[in-house]
């Protein structure tokens, strides 16, 4: 459905010397299947929005190719570049970009009254606008001025405007980031439902990992203009390919170590706080320096009176605890490092208390050590 191939886009650095260019998008390739909900996830400045704007036609890529439905929208080699207003794609912007001088109906009707579609018959405009507004449940507000709508209504209005042209592809640029937390969660379901009902292929840009994981069929985690990992949400969360993904998606503990040997159960990694068995590795072999990643919620906290030692058990003492409502978060001080753990709220351990931590091998992954990482979390 959508193929993006070897996309590159560099910007001139405004502050530095004239010839410096920032590679906002650096050789990005991915494919989105018909009807899929595809998410570009990453921190700000990772190139996700630029990628989306290249697909939209609002930025002109330096090289690469963009194809939607066998229709080439951009190809550097073939010197093709379709203008944004002729691409027939729907887009929802971060600020929604609702035109404040038009009412709800006119905002949605705008795409049917300009450019190539300017000759759409009046009756058809009315019918299509009403249909689009009904889909997002704004039909009763058609005559209202757009700026009089609440944040959530504006977001749905922007969606209706994008859908009214029945685009082949829907592009969403952080559409939920301007809303407050409660509304954001309810609209997440809403958006997902609409997307599934309309069966529309969607490319979604966000920096919010829980949005990405909860809504997508596929996620591309981006960093510094490149795709760091591409996979379904479960892979991204449970089998991060590198420390960046492990750290960016959810919270992760990193323990520095060296891979010593391979055993039937997995690999043994020597760390400053003792040997650890990990079930999976990615990109490291015996003898390599690595980091062991383990999610806070996977660390089992044992009261220290039971056992000492044992496989994958580390001992330390509780340094701080944070009660966050549905859970209890502990910072545990080990002799040479610090681990974050998350337990049900019922288990209360006061600070200073000695504890043992069990790190189940199945939830531990050894990943290559990044060149310059500022300490473990």
């Amino acid at each position, binding site marked *: 459905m959508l193929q993006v191939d070897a996309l590159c886009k560099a910007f001139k650095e405004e502050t530095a010397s004239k010839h410096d260019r920032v590679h906002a998008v650096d050789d990005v390739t991915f494919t989105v299947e018909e009807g899929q909900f595809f998410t570009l996830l990453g921190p700000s400045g990772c190139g996700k929005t630029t990628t989306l704007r290249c697909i939209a036609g609002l930025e002109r890529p330096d090289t690469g190719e963009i194809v939607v439905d066998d229709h080439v929208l951009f190809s550097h080699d073939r010197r093709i570049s379709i203008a944004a207003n002729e691409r*027939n794609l729907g887009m929802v912007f971060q600020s929604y970009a609702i*035109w404040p001088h038009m009412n709800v109906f006119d905002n949605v009707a*705008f795409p049917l009254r300009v450019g190539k579609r300017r000759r759409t018959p009046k009756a058809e405009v009315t019918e299509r606008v009403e249909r689009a507004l009904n889909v997002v449940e704004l039909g009763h507000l058609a005559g209202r001025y757009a700026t009089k709508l609440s944040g959530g209504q504006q977001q749905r209005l922007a969606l209706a405007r994008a859908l009214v042209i029945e685009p082949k592809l829907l592009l969403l640029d952080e559409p939920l980031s301007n809303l407050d937390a409660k509304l954001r969660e309810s609209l997440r379901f809403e958006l997902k439902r609409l997307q599934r009902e309309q069966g529309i292929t969607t490319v979604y840009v966000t920096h919010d990992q829980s949005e990405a994981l909860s809504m997508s069929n596929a996620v591309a985690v981006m960093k510094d203009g490149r795709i760091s990992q591409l996979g379904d949400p479960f892979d991204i969360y449970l089998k991060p390919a590198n420390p960046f993904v492990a750290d960016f998606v959810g919270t992760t503990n990193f323990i520095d170590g060296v891979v010593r040997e391979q055993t039937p159960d997995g690999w043994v990694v020597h760390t400053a706080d003792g040997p650890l068995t990990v079930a999976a590795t990615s990109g490291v072999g015996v003898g390599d320096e690595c980091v062991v990643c383990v999610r806070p919620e996977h660390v089992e906290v044992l009261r220290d009176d039971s056992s000492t030692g044992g496989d994958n058990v580390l001992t330390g003492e509780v340094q701080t605890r944070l009660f966050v409502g549905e859970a209890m978060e502990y910072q545990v001080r080990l002799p040479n490092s610090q681990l974050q753990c998350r337990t049900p709220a019922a288990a209360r351990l006061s600070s200073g208390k000695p504890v043992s931590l069990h790190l189940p091998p199945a939830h531990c992954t050894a990943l290559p050590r990044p060149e310059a990482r500022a300490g473990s979390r």
Partner: protein
Amino acid sequence: MTQLADAGPAPSPDAAPGAERGPRRPRAVYVLGVVVLAILAYLVLSPLFYLAWRGLTTGEGFSLANISAAYSVEGTPEMLVNSFVFAFGSAAVSTVSGTALAFFCVRSNAPLKPLLYAASIVPLIIPGILFTIAWVFLLSEDVGVINILLRSVGLDFLQIDAFSLLGMALIDGMHLSPLVFLLMFAAFKATDPALEESALMSGASVPSVIRKVTLPLVRPALFGAILVMVVRGLESFETPAVLGIPSGNWVFTSRIYQALHTYPVRYDIAAIYSISLLLLTVAGLLFVQRVNRRGERFQTISGKGFRPRPLDLGRWRWPVSVLFALYFVVVVVLPVAILVWMSLLPYYQTPSIDALDTLTLRNYERMFDMPGVVDAVRNSAILAVTSATAVMLFTSVVAWFVLKSRMRGARFLETLASFPLAMPGLVLGVALIFIYLRSPLPIYGTLLILFIAYVTRYLPYGIRYATSSLGQVSAELEDSAQMSGATWRDTFRRVVVPLMAPGIVAGWVYIVVVSVRELSSSILLYSQDTRVLSVTIWELWENGETGVLAAVGVVMVVALMILVGVAYKLGARVGVRDL
């Protein structure tokens, strides 16, 4: 005019969207950009070129002879001293009064605030020539109403003669104080009250908070305002012409005027003085820009999250208010009242009970019989409307190029369009004479030359209104129009222009108002058939027709006030839907 119409916001419809993207896109928008640049360069740079050329050449070619000729005219040293004394004096008056008004208007709980606001803005509406003439009847040595009053209560030593440097500076300063008010109003509004509150919490008293926190915070703005006012004082023409010429207090502007109204006409002197004046004003404004840039470190001052909290003046509330009510009476009520009084008398008499018997509306009738008055109204209206429309249309397009086109060098367009701010009206008039006097095009002596002058002079205001309103239109609003399939023209016409509308309307009204007041360029460029209102008032003054003059003035002030009022209402209505 035709040139400007061609450059309107209508590139060929197949212009590919969004400026620089797509290989086949650029042509139409690019061509439009070049046209815009050419028009701007012609309007702004050709006067400079002709001034320099006329000033630095004699019949035999390049020479500095004009300079020595101009500066060896008798009385030159006095003229230079006078120019600066007048400019600094006027700046002192306007800065002190404007800053105080702004401070109490924004930051105090003084009652009568609406009055303060009116006192600060109304002088902006009264044309300078009328304001000055009104003050002749209030402050001249013999007939000045204020001086007569002072003499009658034995306060002779407080008398100020309008026809002296001090009087000139005082009158000009009062007329210009609204500018300072507006500059300082913004500065005070932008100061975070938390900074003052924390000083109060540290135990400082209110006066010492003002002295040690409030004023230092606005110091860059204040310094910038003083400089701007000195520059304005140097450029000022009305006061030096009405008061300075009869009393022999010459300054640059009146000398330039005189050089062009003696026989034989001294174009060389006019050129040299114009260049000198221009260099001074440009240097001054460049300095202002530097001050402002350095002042950015004071910007605590970002415009979000706080409302100015009024200081409690305590028992000083009423004394302060009375003081400002008095100011209102002096600056607004008295000049307007004396104009009305003058307009109702067959010949001028000092206000008294006896004179009431002679009141008549004859002057308002004579306005229509007087040759030229009706024509002047028509000319002024035509010029004001056409130049305001042309400036706003043109600068909207320029603003789009500056902010949105991402073309190389687009910022230069803004610099170019802002430059006339540093060009005194009289200097522009001199330059336009040089350009069109011998030009084969029949422009000299027509309304067209006045149109060119007005458009050039008011480009800076236009570009400021246009860029600030376009700046508020976020890029995504345009992007989303493109994604909806709109072409560049669709986007500009249906999204950009409607969203800029409040700013364009406000700018339009402002330019109409200042065009109607314009004297210093018009006075050099008008001809028998192209008198404008301000020139007519000037001529009536020279002919001693004070009654008709006052009648015309009253009508003019009322009309301008109605216009500003309507625009204010309209602006408020268009502007309510926040962008």
